[in-house]
């Protein structure tokens, strides 16, 4: 569909992915032709507001939600074409961390068993080996295995539960992790701990991350490149620093202006572009952002903008990109 500055042999190559949900006799256009690549060892941040399809995209990458069309190439193999045992084997290499750490742990199981479960599913029969791996990952995320393995999730705070979830996602030695809003349920002081931990784990285990979040500052803190999503489509992709310093898509600019800055000398921009995202059941024709865009004209309602290079490595899907 378009040519991004393709990193050499990307670990993940998502090509023109379309995901739709049925809703009564209507269709929710959750992801509508999204393409991107993630290089080995890279963190790609994916930002957007609720309902923009970012979580659906994350799930479709892992085949937890099957795409209507398009391909997901992981290390050269098309996950969308895989089924059964082949897909299960591939899943050992890809993991997912969810937003709500407490809800993603079974309240009746002990931490040691929760973290060991992926090993059992993967067929690691040796109990001593499983225990060794569980100890290793629990220590890696900063928990004392001897103290926590025998306890239940309710004995831990949200931040500690997220550490346990991260340990579970690491236990199979994956190459790629989708982090879906991993810190948005956590308090500010805990959030920083978990973000630092993710960065540490990434370096230590050589991980590649797709980091989904709605908070731009959080995304920037961990991402090499950032993709901005609006109503099922990518608006803009580019190197983090460049994209935040010089956004090319009006939606990226709107998001940046809307963030409350913890500095009283920075006056909040009085009512940035108003309105709300339209429904993904009946997305606007042409550019999906045009109903809220100050730059929109006739062409925007008729022609879908493709991602085009606006600066080295930076791509925007806009007919009237910002200078």
């Amino acid at each position, binding site marked *: 569909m378009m040519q991004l500055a393709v990193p050499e042999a990307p670990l993940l190559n998502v090509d023109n992915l379309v995901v739709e949900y049925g809703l009564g006799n209507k269709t929710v256009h959750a992801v509508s032709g999204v393409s991107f690549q993630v290089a080995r060892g890279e963190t790609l941040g994916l930002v957007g507001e*609720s309902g923009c399809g970012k979580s659906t995209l994350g799930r479709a990458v892992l085949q937890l939600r099957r795409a209507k069309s398009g391909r997901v190439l992981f290390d050269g193999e098309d996950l969308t074409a895989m089924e059964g045992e082949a897909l299960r084997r591939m899943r050992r290499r890809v993991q997912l961390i969810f937003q709500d750490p407490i809800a993603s742990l079974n309240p009746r199981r002990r931490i040691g068993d929760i973290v060991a479960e992926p090993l059992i599913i993967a067929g690691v029969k040796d109990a001593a080996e499983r225990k060794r791996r569980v100890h290793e990952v629990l220590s890696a995320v900063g928990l004392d295995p001897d103290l926590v393995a025998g306890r239940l999730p309710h004995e831990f705070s949200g931040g500690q539960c997220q550490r346990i979830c991260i340990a579970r996602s690491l236990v199979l030695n994956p190459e790629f992790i989708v982090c879906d809003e991993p810190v948005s349920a956590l308090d*500010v*002081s805990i*959030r920083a701990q978990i*973000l630092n931990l993710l960065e540490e784990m990434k370096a230590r285990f050589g991980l590649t991350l797709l980091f989904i979040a709605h908070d731009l500052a959080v995304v920037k803190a961990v991402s090499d490149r950032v993709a901005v999503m609006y109503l099922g489509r990518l608006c803009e992709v580019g190197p983090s620093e460049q994209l935040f310093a010089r956004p090319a898509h009006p939606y990226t600019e709107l998001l940046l202006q809307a963030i409350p*800055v913890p500095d*009283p*000398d920075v006056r909040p921009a009085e009512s940035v572009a108003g309105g*709300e995202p339209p429904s993904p059941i009946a997305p606007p024709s042409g550019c999906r952002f045009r109903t809220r865009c100050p730059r929109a004209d006739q062409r925007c309602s008729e022609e879908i903008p493709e991602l085009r290079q606006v600066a080295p490595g930076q791509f925007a899907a806009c007919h009237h990109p910002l200078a």
Partner: protein
Amino acid sequence: MSAPLLTIADVTVELPTPRGNLRAVDHVDLSLEAGRTLGIVGESGCGKTMLSRAVLQLLPKKAKLTGRVMFDGQDLVRLAPESLRRLRGRDLAVVFQDPMTSLNPVLTIGTQLMETIQEHLELDAPEARKRSIELLAAVGIPAPEQRLGQYPHQCSGGMRQRIAIAIALSCEPKLLIADEPTTALDVTIQAQILDLLAREQRRRHMAMIIITHDLGVVAGRADEVAVMYAGRVVERAPTSALFKRMHMPYTEALLAAIPKLDAAPHTPLPAISGRPPDPTRPLRGCPFAPRCRYATGRCHEAKPALTSAEMPDHLYACFHPIQMAEGVGA
């Protein structure tokens, strides 16, 4: 200086739990003048919501409150339930975090708006309806007349919060308490709602308390900020003074822990180690001491009182305040 509209004097709230008494609010003093905005900032469990419930007299039944809450010349703690009911919704209004749970799902928006207006303002139905439409238009709801007949589930989260604000504003309150009013909303909608609150506040000369976990939300919008930790106010100052020079290590650490837009990617964040103390096991010393990098033996032994040094309106509870030496008198 006129008498403050709201004075919270030595308020303590305790909740009985199976593990013992939980002190949610610990000897808090605050005041707010008419037309001003106070931001109360803190993390979950710091007591900020319980404090607002104490002001509204909407505490859980078993909660034990001591102290005084003076509002417009009356002590709300000692006010009869009937008088309280007349006050709440009229002079004293509230907007909660989750507009889906604060609106009644089985009543139309019109019914909910008109109910409040008719209850407090003694208007007849056509007048109440007219006023409802004006209010919905004022909070930026398109086609307000059609909205009156709709139910909350037919509106988006941002719309629902606008409706909740319309209900709160319906009787021209003297004080509006907004408890995490934008936490459930997206950033672009958050900015719109905060702008709306600020605009209506200016227009109505209403006092406002914004309760939030986000220092960014109060920075541009509150006149004064109180930072809470483990049930206590640990620092309180005019907003600009606070952000210029924080004295309490917790406030500084909280600000430092927020990822910044202008920081380079992969910059490690100065995280606060550990977590807040168990509120059923109060510490003898400063509650932040176990996580504080400046803490000394004294901090573990005694609780520092809320005091001021250079500026009379900049209060902090710390034995080792930071940034005190430089620029004194500047």
